[in-house]
């Protein structure tokens, strides 16, 4: 019994030393940034049809509790129906097919100035010679801590 008492004393002392000596740093950032196209002006909306040769401004709203850092925009084909978007709006997909000259757009951008809200606006021209059909539009955003959020939208490129 004496042994247990001594051990418990030891533990209490150890714990009090430890609890005093740590966690004196500032609060950690445990929040992810947010990203959405669900607002007036968000582009593209689910099942949006983009015409070849046209120029569009891709817009999404991003926020973070601390500071936004970077974002990316990725457009790639979904001819094989490999995945679906996260918009909860089912889009009618065209028949599966092989890519001949698919459209790929992959660009990264940084958000300077420690902003907590920002509207992504990326101008993209759909070339005239690319395959038409089902595509994905995937946005992602990071904050200064390294948290990331993503959203993806089913779209189509048409003649």
């Amino acid at each position, binding site marked *: 019994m004496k*042994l*247990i008492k001594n*051990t418990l004393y030891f*533990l209490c002392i*150890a714990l009090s030393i*430890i609890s005093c000596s*740590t966690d004196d*740093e*500032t609060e*950690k950032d*445990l929040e*992810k940034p947010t990203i959405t196209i669900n607002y007036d002006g968000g582009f593209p909306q689910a099942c949006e049809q983009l015409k070849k040769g046209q120029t569009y401004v891709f817009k999404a709203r991003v926020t973070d509790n601390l500071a936004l*850092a*970077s*974002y*990316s*925009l*990725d457009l*790639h*084909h979904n001819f*094989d*129906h*490999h*995945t*679906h978007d*996260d*918009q*909860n709006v089912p889009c009618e997909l065209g028949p599966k097919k*092989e*890519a001949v000259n*698919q459209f*790929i757009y*992959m*660009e*990264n951008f*940084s958000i300077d100035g420690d902003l907590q809200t920002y509207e992504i606006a990326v101008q993209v021209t759909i070339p005239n010679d690319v395959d038409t059909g089902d595509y994905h539009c*995937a946005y*992602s955003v*990071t*904050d*200064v*801590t*390294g*948290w*990331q959020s*993503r*959203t993806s939208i089913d779209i189509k490129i048409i003649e």
Partner: protein
Amino acid sequence: MRHLFLVVFSLLVYPTIYAQSTVCVTGTVVNEQNTKGIENVTILINGRYTTTDIYGQFELHVEKAKHYNLQASHVSYISKQRVLNNSDVTNVVIALKEAINSLAEVNINGKSEQRKLKESPLVSQSVSKTFLETNRENSLMQTLKKIPGVSTINIGSGQSKPVIRGLGFNRVVVVQNGIKHEAQQWGGDHGLEIDQYGIENIKIVKGPASLLYGSDAIAGVVDIQPANVPKRNSFSGEVNLLGETNNDLFGVSAGIASRKNHWFYRGRLTYRDYADYKVPTDRISYDNYIFELYDNNLRNTAGQEANASFSLGYKSNGITSETFISNVNGKNGFFANAHGLEVRTSDIDYDASSRDIDLPYHTVNHFKLTNNTSINTQNHDVFIELGYQNNYREEHSEPVPHGYMPKPDNSKEREFNKNTYALNIKDAMSLISNHDIVAGLNLEYQDNNIGGWGFLIPEYNRFTVGGFAYDQIAITDNFNLQAGLRYDWGLINTKSYYDWYPSTINNPDGSTSYVYLQRAQDKTLNFGSFSGSVGLSYIANNTTYKFNVGKSFRMPLANELASDGVNYHMYRYERGNLNLDPESSYQADFEINHDAEKFSFGVSPFINFFDNYIYLNPTSNYYETLQIYEYTQAEVFRFGGEIKASTTLFKKLNLAASAEYVYARQTSGPKKGFTLPFSPPLSGVVSANYTFNSFSWFENPEVMLDFIVTAAQNEIVPPEEITAGYQVLNVSFLSKLKLSNRLKPLALRIKLNNVFNTKYYNHTSFYRLIDVPEPGRNLSLSLTIPF
């Protein structure tokens, strides 16, 4: 000597007498005082020889004769002779009286393993076959999880990897028969390729153990020791059957062991086949995605495993040598709706059968050939361990274009083929009284090759050599000091890798080029590191006190140094760092263990500091629209420990409780203030075990309740999620089944896991990131049939 002569003689005459008509003499040898069976009693009848099993029973075929001179002898008992007639050769009962000199004899025979563990200042624990059988789960590591301080990283229901005090992957060493198990243990989605049947003894070291085990033994060691050499002139075996309801598993494992005089062999075959496992939910919501589950099945998580092992050994007075050959083969499906973090749709009809394994899946084959030889002379015990192992793993997924990569023409995304050669030599010297000096040398060569259309880690060759020496000084009988030093030197040569498809590069001058990007460089790097430890142990009656300070290290891995690739399934781009130093860790351990008949208590706190912990840091930047993760080094401070207590009431009821906790903080670098990835939360187990009186066929039936309480894990690093706490109850019933006096009793176990079908998340599960809960209620039935 007379016995030895008789043994040799009986072996020589064996073929001749077997041809004649024989009589089977059966019986039991019991202790005169308590009528309990005595194991290992030598039974000699008319020149034939056997020994009793653990229940004191024996069976011996002898040449037919008028009289049978039976002699029963045991080192701790007074020998007895009896003359039997033909009419009384079955169920002979012989009661032996304990010899007064028995205690003295035991002491001469040397220290028990338990005593040695107590004298070593390393915080370690021995895991017996009984523990493994009582707590058997779906994989070896899940079975060991019940030990405070040990946890697992799980990938589905059949695979898991070890975690000791919150550290896993390449910071825990797994040793089997003296040789380090070398696979792709850096990967998040693969499990330990070791057959969990046929293991008799595991030593778990919690704490820095590089002194003895070299690189990687930072958090601890799971040391699977060779099974004990079988008894002379014995043949034994067992068949283990297992069925489970949650994943419709059926498993069978059969093992045999036999020894004549000097030569012995062992063999085992294991086969397991399981379907998709069930979770207590019918839909999984991950980010904005919702996956509906069919019949609660986590689709495509079925798997199968087929293992075979054989060993041949020789034991004489001065030499023991055993050569092991084993092969573990597995195929496991991965959850179909999300591979890594990547959500996938497919034409595959995953719900057609819960037993089939469709894409994505992996196959793994682990082959091992090892030899353990020990040579014992008066002052030297020399141990030589030699090993070759090949780990071949393939990862298959549906071919999909990613980024600039066009659609591949096959499903083989990754292939790893790793050969590892190892040699360990150790000499334990007893030249000076009260000093046990041990010196040794470890050599290892790894050759890792890759294939498939996905790239994660480069090909590499790695050579390491380490030398160590330590001295264990018995200051008094109960007070031991151990001090040792080690130096390791390693050379790693990474091979260059280029993409098999061109990527589009927009040049600053406005032009566009198409380049086969280089993902890994041809580099030769070398590393050297000292490690060591100093510790004290003090044994006061039933209480053991230990204090140990040690430095351990880990050589950087090829992927940490040289990877430069896209991990599409995790939505990240992984970038290595050629300037990484060997990881070094300093740790102080303290342990008090009190073990008495009615009450036991133990506490084992530790404090740990890393000056350059290597981890994959998620940055804020992108590469081809994927988040860049960079291998970085940071200072890390950790502390924690385990506490356990148990008591036995009314000789029948055993109550036990244990808890474990780890605190980890990065104290420098880009994630200063954050914890480490995969940090296990505070958790505890309260167990009750009641042994009933034997009745009917049931011998010593027991009921065991384990109530697991786990706190929430609010300590996370990107991209982890906070995980809520949970409570889970497991109940088991264990009993020996004595169906007849002639047969060895069967061991029966019925276990109900997650009794209330609780939906909970395990913070250290691979599927936690996509919000997949842990398996639901599972009833398992296991039967062990010894022969």
